[in-house]
């Protein structure tokens, strides 16, 4: 049984790889369709291997359920999954993301006006970013209660430093010639900021914003392990593990992966629109 399982899994892997290799090296490799097809086939291959191995090796569903079981649980629990998504992602993660982003921008502009402050704030910010979430989450829950506010606070602290560092780096990224040009126009600090330096900083800022999207998601979910109302993705995951409902855990993981990828993709799309002039956006 084990032998059959491994051989069939490898066969599926081989088939998937073969198809992908042909597609990637074909003439149509640059087309939109192929760019979407190849990762999709890769993912599908992994899912088929998973299903085969779990079924043939008779792995207990309370350790690892097969993808078909997860899919059926996903479709039957959509209202619950949606309520959890609202609580954790929209109320917790998004609020924290926006708060952290605004705070980071404000501090970056403040630091920009003073070299002294920049030198002081960056190492301290780095220290703050190094505070592990397993320690900060219970503390924020104690201060702000169990509802989404404490999760937003955790997220804001987590995303603050990456956005700050990237914004500061971006604000520095103008050449002397460009800054001189603004001076010849008689532009003061604020017009220069808004017309030259902020637009020039956008590629860096978006780099930070993209990194922050995954951090926000993870922060909100993990924070719910330490106290939450009876709704939320982190709550559902931890109680489902306790109830041995592993298929629900994986359904929530699918929601997290979809939400995270969508959020990241949204940021990347906005980046494409705002920084259309940058070399990295050349097709």
């Amino acid at each position, binding site marked *: 049984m084990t032998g059959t399982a491994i051989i069939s899994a490898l066969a599926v892997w081989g088939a998937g790889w073969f198809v992908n290799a042909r597609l990637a090296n074909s003439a149509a490799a640059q087309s939109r369709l192929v760019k979407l097809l190849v990762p999709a086939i890769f993912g599908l291959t992994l899912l088929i291997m998973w299903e085969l191995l779990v079924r043939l090796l008779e792995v207990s569903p309370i350790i690892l359920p097969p993808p078909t079981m997860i899919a059926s649980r996903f479709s039957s629990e959509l209202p619950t999954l949606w309520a959890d998504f609202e609580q954790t992602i929209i109320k917790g993660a998004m609020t924290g993301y926006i708060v952290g982003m605004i705070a980071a921008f404000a501090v970056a502009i403040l630091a920009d006006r003073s070299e002294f402050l920049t030198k002081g704030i*960056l190492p301290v910010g780095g220290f703050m970013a190094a505070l*592990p979430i397993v320690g900060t989450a219970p503390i924020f829950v104690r201060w702000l209660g169990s509802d989404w506010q404490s999760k937003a606070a955790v997220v804001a602290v987590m995303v603050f430093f990456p956005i700050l560092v990237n914004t500061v780096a971006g604000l520095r990224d103008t050449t002397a010639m460009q800054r001189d040009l603004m001076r010849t126009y008689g532009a003061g600090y604020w017009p220069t900021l808004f017309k030259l330096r902020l637009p020039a900083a956008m590629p860096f800022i978006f780099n930070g914003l993209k990194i922050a999207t995954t951090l926000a998601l993870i922060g909100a979910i993990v924070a719910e392990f330490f106290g939450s109302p009876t709704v939320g993705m982190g709550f559902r995951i931890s109680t489902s593990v306790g109830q041995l409902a592993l298929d629900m855990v994986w359904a929530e993981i699918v929601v997290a992966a979809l939400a995270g990828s969508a959020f990241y993709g949204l940021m990347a799309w906005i980046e494409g629109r705002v920084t259309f002039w940058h070399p990295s956006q050349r097709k």
Partner: protein
Amino acid sequence: MDEESRGGGVKSLLPVLTVVGAILLFWVVSVVPMNMHLTADLAQRQDIAVTPDTPAARQDYSGIGLALRNTHLFGMTYTLDRPRLPSPHQVAVEMWDTIVMKNVTSRRSLVYHGWVTLSATLLGFAIGTGLGILLAVGIVYNRAMDMSVMPWAIASQTIPILALAPMIIVMLGSIGIQGLFPKAVISAYLSFFPVVVGMVKGLRSPDAMQLDLLRTYYASSAQGFWKLRLPASVPYLFASLKIGISASLVGAIVAELPTGARAGFGARMLVGDQYGQPMVTWAALFAAALTAATLVGFFSVMERWTLRRMGMQAT
């Protein structure tokens, strides 16, 4: 967070101290309103006059409002056993006590727990970095891998590790692997992605002219890798290593929860939180952050030294 803020030495010490000082001041001042409700409850039980005099009525006041009405309780807010916000000196005393005043091999020493977490971190970091570099090389040299693996690597980072960790631990436990290795696996999961992203960017950073030059030397693909792509990727590698080591530490701490919270910073934070000893939690929290900052600093120094040796940076 590299040369400018670290290499300046004395020049950057003063700004850092100023900012740290400002934060400490803010912290010390915040202790009063944060702890005021608990202090008022405690004072009332000791028959000290409190305004207003029932807990239910006090619920309507904010911390600051309550503090302004009970200035005689200010001193007490700094000496609570279970404060909502410990004062800096309380945290410092706890850290001193468990780092310096305890035998390094004792279970009550934060140094011992630091080593437990650090060992999982370093092993996980080594695995994650090795895997990340291999994946990056595969992505750069194989188009099928490039198109198929990258989106899934990004998606893998959106999966909450705290949900996967028990599964990984149980599955590894069922084939007899327990102890350090499962924690290192979780640690590696969090650190491989920054390394992949950084190395891919780095391995692709040589420009067309440099690649052409190698072609004129009739260099093979392998020679091109070792002599051009790999050296060119070193600055990007170090940037990724610094993010990766931080992520590894977070992963190691997270991994301590599903492995029985036996030892390490995460275990201390959890048990301290659970058994009403907030000082233990805060001390472990700061110790973990200091460890991360030290590790990142170590890589910064390594980066400067290596780049100087490779001639990629003026002294």
